[in-house]
């Protein structure tokens, strides 16, 4: 079973003592703040966790795998995540 937003809401309820409705808003707020910054092209660095970065990808020649026809892919922006040393250490047993 994967951890979902509902579990994060639960964890925030436990530490904050706030109501469920408030914690739902808070978790949504955290996510929308991070998303908005990334959408604005800004990197988001959470020390001890990792860094969400925007990377610019150049236009490139691609291929439609179904038809095999050539096409040009436009330049685009993608989100990448670089884990911090601490997070890496934690997933390897601390």
């Amino acid at each position, binding site marked *: *079973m*994967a*951890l*979902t*937003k509902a*579990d*994060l809401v639960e*964890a*925030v309820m*436990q*530490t*904050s003592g706030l109501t469920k409705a*408030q914690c739902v*808003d*808070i*978790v949504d*707020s*955290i*996510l929308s*703040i*991070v*998303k908005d*910054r*990334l*959408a604005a*092209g*800004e*990197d*988001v*660095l*959470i*020390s*001890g*966790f*990792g860094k*969400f970065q*925007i990377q610019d990808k150049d236009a490139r020649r691609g291929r439609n795998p179904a038809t095999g026809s050539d096409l040009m892919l*436009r330049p*685009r*922006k*993608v*989100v*990448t*995540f670089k*884990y911090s040393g601490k*997070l*890496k250490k*934690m*997933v*390897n*047993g*601390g």
Partner: protein
Amino acid sequence: MNRSDLINALKEKANLSRKDSEKIVDTFFQTITDTLASGERVEIRGFGSFTVKKYKPYTGRNPKTGVQIRVPAKKLPFFKVGKELKEMVDLEEDE
């Protein structure tokens, strides 16, 4: 934006004290970290999912010196961006 900026932005947005905002931001990322450390995945709809990939040990080589090194088995965290976030950062503009 860094952790401190996020704490301040959440404080404003959710009308919290600085102390509560900090505690909540720490809980948020600590919960994700603990889940990944336990080997479980994290799926946040509209944002993305975090998984842990396992790597087997292998014998590598320092490309500079040519010295063989034993690389032990390891696990690394990965993030796959969700559809909504992916589209938010890469709005296709009308040309």
